[in-house]
């Protein structure tokens, strides 16, 4: 995974991952604003091959687009309209709060998030979409505005991300929402240590602008199954608070609470048409991305 590339963040673009997901696409489910032809649906009609609708001719329309066959049948002028394909704004929102620095399997959640972000960015970049990056904890830490030329910048920024401060979802996400003027594809990578309702309330503004939001919920296996055995003092990475814990006595209840949390998130996100994907950092990234992208592709077709 360590690369000798001149770009420091290049290691986050894992060839193994890309080999598996390279033939997949991350396509915005909703229409996105773009300037050049791309793979995403544009809010505008344009010169694509996909027929959209007929509309009545109004003076000024290009007569080349009059459907003459229809005129023959109806003796009225109709204009044939086609769907326009567009490129999209893509931005990864990476949570770099201190809790993301946690990891028990040799890799922290932040490392995983950086790889996830790197791979997705690269994938999207290949689609000729504009790519950007926002890192946040309780405030916005890094901001790379979306641009087709920002691939290397994104990788640089990913490289220097460090978990340093306690996190908070609401304030930075609300702030961000104001920046994303154009509709695009947003990927939020976080461990979502907030109440499901709070989480939803925090991400809602991102949705308001019509952005397609994908949420990757990163959790370490230890956070999921609470496999600790020795009674210890548990220290909150964010607040520094310590609680003496006998894990064997608590594990059951803890797992129950985590499950309820995930279920709450799943329900709320799906109700709000937000893609939600729980990622266990013990799962290889390629597996995780592959399963997500294929599922999304399939669902997109169904839609």
């Amino acid at each position, binding site marked *: 995974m360590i690369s000798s590339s001149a770009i420091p963040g290049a290691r986050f673009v894992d060839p193994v991952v890309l080999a598996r997901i390279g033939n997949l696409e991350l396509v915005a489910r909703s229409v996105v604003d773009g300037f050049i032809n791309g793979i995403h649906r544009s809010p505008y009609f344009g010169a694509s091959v996909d027929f959209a609708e007929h509309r009545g001719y109004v003076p000024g329309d290009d007569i080349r687009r009059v459907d003459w066959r229809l005129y023959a049948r109806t003796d009225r002028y109709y204009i044939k309209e086609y769907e326009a394909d567009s490129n999209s704004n893509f931005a990864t929102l990476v949570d770099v709060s201190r809790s993301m620095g946690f990891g028990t399997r040799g890799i922290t959640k932040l490392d995983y998030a950086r790889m996830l972000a790197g791979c997705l960015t690269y994938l999207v970049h290949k689609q000729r979409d504009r790519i950007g990056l926002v890192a946040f904890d309780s405030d916005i830490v890094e901001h790379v505005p979306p641009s087709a030329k920002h691939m290397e910048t994104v990788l640089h920024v990913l490289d220097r991300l460090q978990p340093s401060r306690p996190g908070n979802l609401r304030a930075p996400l609300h702030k961000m929402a104001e920046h994303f003027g154009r509709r695009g594809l947003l990927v939020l990578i976080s461990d979502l240590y907030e109440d499901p309702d709070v989480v939803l309330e925090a991400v809602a503004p991102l949705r308001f602008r019509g952005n397609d939001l994908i949420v990757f919920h990163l959790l370490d296996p230890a956070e999921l199954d609470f496999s600790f055995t020795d009674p210890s*003092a*548990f220290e909150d*990475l964010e607040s520094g608070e310590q*609680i003496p814990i*006998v894990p064997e006595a608590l594990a059951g209840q803890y797992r129950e609470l985590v499950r309820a*949390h995930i279920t709450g998130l799943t329900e709320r996100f799906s109700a709000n048409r937000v893609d939600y994907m729980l990622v266990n950092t013990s799962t290889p990234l390629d597996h995780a991305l592959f399963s997500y992208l294929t599922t999304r592709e399939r669902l997109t077709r169904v839609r």
Partner: protein
Amino acid sequence: MSFLTPLFLVALAGLAIPIVLHLIQKERKNVVQFPSLMFLRRIPYQSVQRRRIRHWLLLLMRLAALALIVLAFARPFFRNDGLGSAAASGAREVVVLLDRSYSMGYGDRWRRALDAARDAVNGLTPSDRGSIVLFSSGAEIAIRSTGDRGRLAAALAGLDTGAGATRFGPALKLAGSILGESPLPRREAILISDFQRAGWQGAEGVRLPEGAVLMPISVSGDEPANLAVTPVALQRSAFEGQERVTITAGAVNHSTAPASGVNLALEIGGRPIQTRQIALEANGSASTTFEPITLSERNVKATVRLAGDALERDNAFHFVLSPEDPIRVVIAERPGAPRETSLYLTRALAIGEAPRFQAAATQADALTAGDLAKASVVILNDAPVAQSTAERLQRFVQGGGGLFIAAGDRASWPASADILPGSIGPPVDRSKGNAARLGALEYGHSVFEIFRAPRSGDFAAARFYGYRSVTPNPGADVVARFDDGGAALLERRVGAGRVLIWTSTLDLYWNDLPVKPVFLPFVHRAMRHLAGYREPQPWRTVGDVVEPWSAPEASRGARTDASSRVVLTPAGQRVTLDEEGAEVLELLEQGFYEIRTQSGDTEPSAVVASNVDLRESDLAAMDPQEIRAAAMGRAGGGGTAEDVAPPTDQAQESAQRVWWYLLFAGLLFLGAETIVANRSTV
């Protein structure tokens, strides 16, 4: 069950430690960093079942190990009372050792000792057998191994303390032999004493038979105070032809309190004549000197006495004063001998205090029987001896006299009188070349004994230019030789007397020995040896053995009188000593023993003063357990229980050694706990 060190049981509170560890386990200080305690915080704190003990086995093992170790340190033991009564069924052989040294007369010690002895006798059951051994410096069996308690009680009646000093060794040996011969199953020795430190010199090889028990019963009180008169020092001097003696007497204070105004009285013949007052510091001694006394008669009984204290016997010190007898020496010279011949000899004999020498010069031919009767030693100084004189001298020597022959070139001896150690041969001239020197001395001989130590006299410095060659006779000893092997001094015992031949002269004619420092002691030692001189002993100690036949006090008066004698003891008893029984006189009492001849003389031929052993007057007591340990081979723990003095807790505990098993079990539990703990962790 009892505990020797019950305070250790406080450590049982430590049992709470594993429990608290089990319950809290907060002591493990590892901190786990966790992304968020959001969910953990929601779990109610009180519902955490951290206080539940899961590893019951581990906990119990730890508790057991701790409890066992703590119990082991508390040194538990089972009191042996029940066992003792069970074992008490066997018949006992009991030896009561009763200390009757004079220190037992201090205060009420003797009464308490008798009470303890009676208690021991009364404690005997009909099947038991008892013996009573009385001991001081020696031990005697008062009554041996009888079941008759009446006889035992009777043996105790009428006893009083003796004059002897305490010695535990002989008494314990005697008890050991009585117990060793006993067929009874339980054997005990009860030692009743004041346990003076002076009476025990260590183990002394005393060991009771296996299984025998020694029960010490101490009657010593606390802080005894005692004054004692110390031996006197006698300083003799001559005054107007009579001998005077100055007596210096002292006293010692065996207590931690000073004593002042102590009166020391000097008694002569039973009458006090002088009194001095002294002051004694705590644990100190002081002395005083009395006015000189003129000695006019023999065997004067003298006593230094101090005012009474709790222990009476050591308040008097007896001694005998007699005018000192000089050694009478007759120097026989050849007729017409120059004055220098005996100059050095007479000068040497004129010096000397103890003993004094009384030298008289005469001609060898003029020696009469009367001269010889008064003389102790005859010196033939380079004189030819006629046949008649030789015969007289032969009788003199056989009767116990001493003969010293200095063999110069004129000395001769008739061959018919065979009393010489060797035959005197021709002179050997060593005036040419190197002079002869004394090469080998018999330092074991009493003449040369004082020269034995290094730098105590150099005979090799004397040069001899001539001497007579003497061929030793059978039965003669060559005491000194010249460097060429020729005999220098020879000795032979003849009858009761001795003959010495000095093969050179006693003047400067043949040698320069008379001007050497060794000459005077050499002459003195030779005279003392020939005269059979022994230092007079003005006093003896109780326990000493006196041979009345050879005692200088006795022998001087009538050497030839070998008839049986009568000894009058201080208690007034008459003891007849006859020659056939080779009886010796053992001094058992304090006071004056008078030795008289059987013929009924009014004046005693000899008086022996007997004093108590002053070591006994130091009443400092020792730990009876020391004797017990030495006699039984271990510090405590008896094979059988004893009603009089049951074994101490320490003894019982050390015999049972329960702690050892507890500690071992505790360690076993700890080991097992480690194994179980490892298994459960895995």
